[in-house]
């Protein structure tokens, strides 16, 4: 049997309330490109973070060249020759390319005052670059470089440190098609040089272009490892099924009856360079779901609908009246509320109590003369909402930071309800929410749809499929699918989101 470059065996990682990895096995042969696939939350990122020393595994073992190794921190990973290039490589934007490549290893000499020989560094960096058929000016600050050039510099940085395993985490999500080609040729060169590569992506199409094998993770377990020539592109559907598993159980509430009149509609909405030609309408009693992966423009769409990012063109109609949404405060005044995807950054003020967070969206409602807040009426109305939404614990003087993820999300939803909006947009409504609370949040959204217009924007295909009555799939900024949910299958939807519709790439 052929020797393995890297072997991960029985890897377990638990987070409070979630088992992110439940005994994952993963093997990497020398000089192969091995793709790692899985829907959001399947455990891909957790697995590579364990490999690169960001997280520590709870159980399991890692072998490198048949020697058992322990990776306790990022330095350990580098020492063992494992390098990771993340989605959006972190660099010092005012430093030049070669300075970034050798950041932290400028000089062999110890001591703070040892001289940095810039000329030598640049020559060394250019020598590294010579191996690849690309031309980058390494003397320019990286802030002036394009996405692919930064990506290459991140790879060069990894190469500069005597590395044999390279992890690429969704490297193409911010690249154009042409840039992706450049990256692929680089990957092939590295592969020929004997480097083993773990390649993480959402885009199935790419896997057949670049990977030798693929492993599918689902719900913290590895469910299959296939050779890519076996699974030619006709097998897309089979892989989509593997990624999803058979676990569409009763997490999702029953759908409503016949939808009522139109509440909100969007016409020809576009944001330069991100998405275009988005059209849909939301009716009372139905949920519109928008599924799109990172780079599809879905996240930006949620912010454009809420006025945080100004649109390039298009029109909004609310209750049969054309409206303008130029800022979030204007959106809320008009009756549109976004429950944002990045809860800790955008949704909640962690250091403040629950009541502070909830009432912030509509302080007018509880303030009287001279803008003074009527505390009694605030407590009453916030408490009522918190009880209705079932936030635990119920004490509204509790700081939001002390609540669990699910309850934090419920606080943000309460804040939305407090604004008395007519349309609610939920972006990634269950990210960072434990399984137990998910059902509660889904039921809440479904109940809300009886009176309000609901839009769910998510990169979780299952969630969109399970919740919505009408599904829109975004792929690289284009509407790849817009169907009634009864007319499409989940696998079809996922496929559409990872390949852009299937027809074009056959």
């Amino acid at each position, binding site marked *: 049997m052929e020797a393995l470059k890297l072997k991960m065996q029985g890897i377990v990682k638990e987070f409070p309330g979630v088992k992110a990895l439940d005994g994952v096995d993963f093997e990497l042969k020398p000089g192969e490109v091995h793709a790692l696939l899985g829907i959001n939350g399947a455990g*891909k990122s957790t697995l590579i973070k364990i490999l690169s020393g960001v997280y520590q595994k709870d159980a399991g073992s890692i072998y490198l060249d048949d020697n058992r190794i322990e990776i306790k921190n990022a330095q350990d990973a580098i020492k063992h020759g494992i390098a990771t290039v993340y989605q959006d490589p972190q660099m010092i934007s005012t430093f030049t390319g070669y300075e970034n490549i050798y950041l932290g290893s400028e000089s062999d000499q110890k001591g703070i005052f040892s001289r940095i020989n810039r000329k030598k560094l640049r020559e060394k960096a250019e020598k590294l670059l010579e191996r690849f058929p690309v031309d980058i000016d390494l003397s320019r600050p990286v802030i002036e470089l394009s996405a692919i050039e930064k990506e290459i510099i991140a790879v060069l940085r990894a190469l500069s440190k005597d590395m044999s395993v390279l992890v690429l985490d969704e490297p193409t999500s911010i690249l154009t098609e042409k840039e992706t080609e450049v990256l692929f040729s680089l990957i092939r060169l590295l592969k020929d040089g004997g480097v083993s590569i773990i390649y993480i992506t959402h885009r199935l199409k790419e896997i057949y272009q670049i990977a030798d094998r693929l492993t599918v993770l689902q719900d913290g377990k590895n469910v299959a490892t296939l050779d890519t020539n076996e699974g030619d592109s006709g097998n897309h559907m089979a892989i989509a099924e593997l990624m999803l598993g058979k676990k569409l159980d009763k997490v999702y509430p029953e759908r409503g009856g016949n939808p009522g009149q139109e509440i909100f509609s969007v016409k020809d909405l576009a944001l330069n360079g991100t998405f275009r030609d988005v059209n849909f309408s939301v009716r009372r009693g139905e949920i519109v779901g928008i599924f799109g992966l990172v780079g599809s423009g879905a996240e930006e769409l949620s912010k454009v609908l809420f006025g945080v990012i100004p649109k390039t063109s298009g029109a909004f109609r609310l209750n049969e009246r054309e409206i303008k949404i130029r800022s979030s405060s204007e959106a809320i005044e008009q009756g549109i509320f976004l429950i944002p995807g990045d809860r800790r950054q955008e949704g*909640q*003020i962690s250091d403040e*109590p629950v009541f502070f967070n909830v009432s912030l969206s509509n302080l007018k409602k509880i303030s009287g003369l001279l803008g003074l*807040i009527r505390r009694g009426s605030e407590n009453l109305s916030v408490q009522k909402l918190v009880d209705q939404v079932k936030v635990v614990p119920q004490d509204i*003087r509790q700081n939001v930071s002390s609540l669990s993820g699910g309850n934090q999300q419920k606080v943000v939803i309460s804040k939305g309800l407090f604004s008395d909006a007519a349309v609610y947009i939920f972006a990634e409504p269950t*990210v*960072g929410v434990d399984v137990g609370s998910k059902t509660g949040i889904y039921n809440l959204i479904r109940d809300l749809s009886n009176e309000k217009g609901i839009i769910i924007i998510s990169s979780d295909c299952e969630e969109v499929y399970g919740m919505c009555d009408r599904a829109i799939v975004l792929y690289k900024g284009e509407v790849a699918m817009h169907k009634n949910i009864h007319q499409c299958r989940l696998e079809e939807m996922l496929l559409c989101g990872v390949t852009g519709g299937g027809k074009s790439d056959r």
Partner: protein
Amino acid sequence: MTDKKGPSISDTLKSIAIFVMMIAVIIIIFSLVEDKFLTARNLKMLLRHMSISALTALGLTYVIILGHYDMSFYMVGCFAAMTTSYLNKMDIMMDSFMIGSIHSFVIPAVLAGIAVGCAWGLISGIAVGFLKMNDMVTTIGVGFIAFGTAYLYSKGSFIYDNFLTSGITEINNADWFYVPFPIVLMLGLYLISYLILSRSKFGRNFYATGSNRIAAIFSGVRVVPYIIVAFVICSGLTSLAAIMTTSAQGVGNVKASINFLMPAYAAVYIGISVFKKATVIGTFFGALFTSVMLNGFTLMAMPFYLSDLIIAVSLIIAIILSKIDWTSIQKKNPIPGSGSEIAYEK
């Protein structure tokens, strides 16, 4: 679980009790060392002196709540004081009548001083809030421009003219029901600020903007106007304090408020060290604390540079104390769902 709760009435009372005890201890020590300390005359002096630094610190509180810093206000105060002094001098040429014991022109002179002070704050506020320039560097720049401009009124020399005749000194000397006017003014403005920052919707938006600006925007708060207003209030209150100092000194001095910077930061941060966030009540006690210290040391004939040094040391200690979260020391475990440990799969 009580330690994780948000502020409640009892927490505020606890913090006030800590302050009262701290200040009581210092007062006892001073009164033992110096018999003149605990006299009505001295306490009146103390409060009078406190009213100046307390007003400046109150203005700074608005800026600090937003998470910004203002390094311009003390120099803006100099400009405001010189503006008022200059206009007060012009009073000789005006046909002004008497209102009580002051000339009618004194009132617009004072208001104009405060208004130009606010204008400097407006510049800083627009630069920081709207143009998103760095607060520290911008306000240092704006402050020095204001200070430089203040010299133009008299080329830097003192303005004595008309000070003893126009009645401007009454701002400092007048009593309202046996309480000196500066103290009344301080208490009144603190009460108003307390209502704004701790009891009104505006205060909620100030604190929200300071705690998490992005989340505030996503909650519909228009954050930029709040930033601008905070800088205007900071400069305006400092200008008022500087004008009061000028009227107390009886002379227009370019350096009227040049040493306001450190006591204001000391007051705000001593408040934060006990209350764990910038509050009106905390700043009030912070200002009282520094004033008691300064007054005591002055009575003991300690040279001014040493008392400055002691206040500066207490500022640094306060900053260190405000960084320590006493409740989290025993429990190092991350809270589920809120720490960075949670898996955010993207």
